[in-house]
């Protein structure tokens, strides 16, 4: 099977000379389809930079990175947009829904960029909202929803895209414990359906849900442990 994520010797360097910072320093990483991987690390460990590279929001300074076997090393801006649109479902810490647009319209948005027809994408959006338990909230705007509900809309948006990889960046960082449990349960369900999930977190209870935990330190992989062996 083709790995969803295949990174080889990835480095990301900011600045030059004296001010040079190696945020990610020689990371090699493979994620197989159906895996649920947590990436942990203290702040400054390079996990945000790594997450941006995995999500094709940023390109590495050196090294090769394939998503679904596609090398994205020398793609331009628009091609990267296309890769994100087709293969990656983002769930952000700050929810990142577009204000003044209904939940349904937010979920539809990536499908619109993909060129899906209006009726079809409305159907898929309502479907996804149903899966996260917000079918009755489809006309609400983000500011009319609680934090937990907003994050579930974001999960629905990622789901509707049917991505190769669900990429969650501290998805529970802004949520209370009850909403945290809701969202994590949701991710468990999604994983049970066979989706591949990479979650970036610094909380042990979040990482505990994953089947594999990778710990970063100073831009390098410190440990890579399967849950069964923990």
């Amino acid at each position, binding site marked *: 099977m083709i790995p969803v994520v295949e990174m080889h010797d990835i480095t990301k360097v900011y600045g030059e000379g004296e001010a040079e910072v190696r945020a990610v320093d020689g990371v090699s990483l493979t994620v197989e389809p159906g895996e649920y991987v947590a990436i942990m690390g203290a702040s400054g460990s390079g996990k945000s930079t790594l997450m*941006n590279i995995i*999500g094709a*929001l*940023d390109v590495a300074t050196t090294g090769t990175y394939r998503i679904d076997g596609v090398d994205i090393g020398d793609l331009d*801006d*628009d091609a990267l*947009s*296309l890769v*994100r*649109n*087709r293969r990656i479902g*983002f769930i*952000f810490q700050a929810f*990142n*829904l*577009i*204000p*003044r*647009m209904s939940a349904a319209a937010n979920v539809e*948005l*990536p499908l*619109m*960029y*993909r*060129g899906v027809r209006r009726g079809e994408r409305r159907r898929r959006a309502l479907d996804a909202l149903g899966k996260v338990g917000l079918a009755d909230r489809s006309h609400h705007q983000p500011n009319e929803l609680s934090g937990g509900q907003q994050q579930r809309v974001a999960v629905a*948006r990622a789901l509707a*895209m049917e991505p190769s990889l669900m990429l969650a960046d501290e998805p529970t960082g802004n949520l209370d414990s009850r909403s945290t449990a809701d969202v994590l349960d949701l991710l468990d369900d999604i994983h049970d359906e066979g989706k591949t999930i990479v979650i970036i977190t610094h909380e042990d209870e979040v990482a505990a849900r994953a089947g594999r935990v990778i710990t970063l330190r100073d831009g390098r992989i410190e440990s890579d442990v399967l849950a069964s062996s923990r």
Partner: protein
Amino acid sequence: MILVEALRSGWQAIVANRLRSILTTLGIMIGVAAVIILVAFGQGASNSVTSSIQSLGSNLLTITPENPNRGGEIVNPSIQELTVADAAALNDAVLAPDIAGAAPERRAPVTCTIGDLSHSTQIVGTWPSYFEITNSPVAEGAYFTNTDELSARRITVIGSTVAESLFPDSDPLGKRISCNGAPFTVVGVQQEKGASFTNPDDVIVAPLSAVENSITGYGEVSLISVQATSPDTTDLAEAQAIAILDERHGTVEGTRDFEIFNQASLLETANTALGVFTALLGAVGAISLLVGGIGITNIMLVSVTERTREIGIRKAIGASRRFILLQFLLEATVLSVFGATAGLVIALLVSQVEVAGISPSVVPISVVGAYVISVAIGLFFGSYPAKRAASLRPIEALRHE
């Protein structure tokens, strides 16, 4: 497809920021309305001047005696005045085929009275052809005829101003008025010509022989009115008149003792001047349109800054540069087209109103022009903010608070 989706996204943003969109639209609206209204007023002024010149007879030439002196030195000492014979010579179908008619005018200030009413005006002693040559039809009554001229009958056709002054509430026809002591019977009243540089209605017209007989005495005439066969032949008629008078007076260019005033060239000059005036007004309008355009750039830049995070989100979930560019461009264009439409409606309403005697005339090209320009303004002034939005890097845009 992408166009429709981008337009829909842009429209959502416009509706979401209703007040700001309306204020931005206002700038373009004022600009477009200003261009159309100002040009319409310029055109209206031009029309009214043109029609008042044309009412004097657009194919009219006026010949006046002129003593050609340069810096006080008399160039032609053997100066001759214009005579009735000169006028007769111009009525020559062979030498002057483009002259439809010429009539001498003997003008003199007179005071006319009837009962205890008195009015100071100008008397014009002329031939019956005067009425046709100078485009002066009578509104009521009749003209005088060649018979009247030959028999020096003291009858007169009075201007409308004179009629109002001397006959405020009675019918002037058949009444006898006394001009400088000489009695004249009113046989007609001229049609009102309307305001011009001088009031053409403050005049009384009588047979030349009668005027010479009773008021001015015999001698030179004040001017000769010449009618060209059509407005297009005024220049030919002018040349033929000059040739005939040069021959009679023994003059050449530089020593000429008469001057020809061409109504058509006056019209041309006036039109040129009014064209400049209209262009100037249009330019003032264009400046406000430009200011409106800068308003669009301004508001779109604010919008891009304010929505940096939103743009980041859109790019993260797969919006291409092209889509973002298109969305912001269309947003700016929709704003300016709305402004242009509102401006057009206002301009058409305002153009119904007559101001200072000028009824504005909407020039179609200014409507089309203002519309096209405002769309161009949306595209041009929206392109910089749109480019800024499109080139935002998603990770930086997402970090933006």
